């Protein structure tokens, strides 16, 4: 069909990319997941309350063929820091392309420098955040991921940064008249 490519990928599109949220405080994790509701339709949202749980989720995602698009991480975690976890993600080729965001109230200068230099941190949200602020950051980061990974932007037009994605379609010949 004219657009069989579009249809095939439309069927595949829902929730093929994953967002990981790592936060040890149950209430805060709940709040993050609630704020991410607008992205549920097209992304798998995976909550984790500690690092070992997060690692298990990453194994599951790999097995299911779901690339990690975005990791939202609290900084202070029992026994470790979010920054260290992000550094770990950045070293693994499978999760290296994922966008990395730190949500924190207490990261010192040293950790922040490490996060930027070694974890390839893309954004730093300081607590407390507003739903709009978080959604805007997530939207920007996911858009950047889609463009960077050259994923067909058409499925994400409605929920991510539409003008930017439409511009990418216009100039990239991803879809042409047939």
């Amino acid at each position, binding site marked *: 069909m004219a657009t069989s490519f579009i249809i095939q990928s439309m069927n595949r599109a829902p929730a093929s990319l994953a967002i990981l949220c790592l936060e040890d405080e149950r209430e805060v994790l709940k709040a993050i997941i609630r704020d991410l509701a607008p992205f549920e339709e097209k992304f798998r949202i995976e909550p984790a309350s500690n690092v070992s749980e997060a690692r298990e989720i990453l194994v599951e995602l790999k097995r299911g063929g779901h690339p990690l698009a975005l990791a939202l991480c609290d900084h202070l975690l029992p026994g470790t820091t979010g920054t260290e976890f992000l550094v770990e993600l950045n070293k693994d080729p499978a999760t290296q392309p994922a966008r990395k965001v730190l949500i924190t109230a207490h990261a010192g200068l040293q950790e922040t420098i490490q996060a930027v230099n070694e974890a390839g941190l893309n954004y730093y949200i300081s607590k407390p955040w507003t739903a709009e602020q978080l959604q805007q950051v997530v939207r920007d980061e996911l858009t950047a991921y889609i463009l960077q990974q050259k994923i067909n932007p058409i499925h994400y037009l409605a929920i991510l940064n539409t003008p930017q994605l439409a511009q990418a379609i216009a100039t*990239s010949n991803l879809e042409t008249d047939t």
Partner: protein
Amino acid sequence: MKRTYWVFLGLVLLGLPSLFHSESLNPAAAITMGLFLMAGLFWVTAPIPIYATSLLVILLQLVLLSKNAPGVQYFSFPYPAELAPSPAVFTGTLAHPILILFLGGFMIATVAVKFSLEKNLVRILLAPCGSSPRLLLFGILLATALLSAFMSNTATTAMMVAMLLPVLSRLTADDPLRIALALAIPLGANLGGMATPIGTPPNAVAIGALASSGIRLDFGQWMLMAVPLTLTSLLLGGLCLLALYPPKAKKIDLQIPGRFDRTGSAVLMYLVTGFTILLWATESLHGVPSTVTAFIPVALLPALGLITKEDIRSISWEVLWLVAGGISLGISLEKTGLATWIVGLIDWQTLPFFLLVAGFLGVSVLLANFLSHTVTTTLLVPLALSLGTSGVISGPGEMALIAVSIAVASSFGMSLPISTPPNAIAISTGAVNSPQMFQLGVVMAILGSLLTWFFATWLWPHLLSFNQ
């Protein structure tokens, strides 16, 4: 695996006609019929990409139907030598003059996007519309159509969506104008494609098939026929949108920032583009074929460094090859005598010309809703033209009319999100839903069929004169 079944069925269809020997259907024609059935099935069900089917058709023609082809020698078909074209005839379709014309169009579109020429054109086209929502709707329809007449419908849609979505988000959520504007973009893009030979690939299919039958239709002649049709249907489409979705906003604040690029490279690009389009539109005055003109941007833009090798790689070559396969198939259809044989199956004499046109363009609109517009045109135009070669319709004039009708009618096939890539983009924005698109699409399919039929049977014959 559904895909495997379709491939298997296609291969059966390929061989089937060759099993039936008859006096009237020679072996080469039987092979061509098998090819046509297989290609048709593959194009419709798409077990392999549609451009891959086109390339497969050319391969099979080279192996089975060309002069000294291995298949011909191996199976020792009683295949009259004068019927078998040389292999170069089939491979040559990849550089068919109409595809060179398209290549010129692709080059111009690529370079225009690089310098944001399209955005600046939209900006100045929309400026006179001021802040009136109704005027703006027509402005957007016209601007989108104008760009899509020279660029791909898909790229035009994506560009307009990128420019206008911020405007839509400033309207209140319940304002029907949002839906009207979101529908106006794919509508303008689909209709604008009809306006010039390089607007959309189905036009190339019709012109290519006509050229194979020895009928030349130049750039200006095409525009003379198609531009009035495009403008009329844009007007009707705009009125439909206003009737269905009357705007609530009294005024709309449209601020599109930007200015024309005035660097040396940009000015060179404006000159090359402007000169090429001018030569295309005035072909009937100076007689330089549009293919020759098309080679000006193809050669000069890379020479001036305005098109790089990355740009050349980004050109949609698969679209050109898709069309080439169709043209190639058309050649065998005529050369092997299959066309005449098909026409002989039905007693066409009872059908007057205006009914024939109605039938073909009706089928074209219908199929184009579900299939690729190029595939629709590729399947129908050779059949329609075979009526001319076998004398059912009279002369090059009527052949041109019927081929152009089929091609432009396919552009009215736009009721479903899958009908055209512009529709898919518009739906993906979330600003409009499928039932809304379907409603407008059905209205446009009906209006468009009637308009095309009226133009083809009443207006166009007066505009065209063909040398026999």
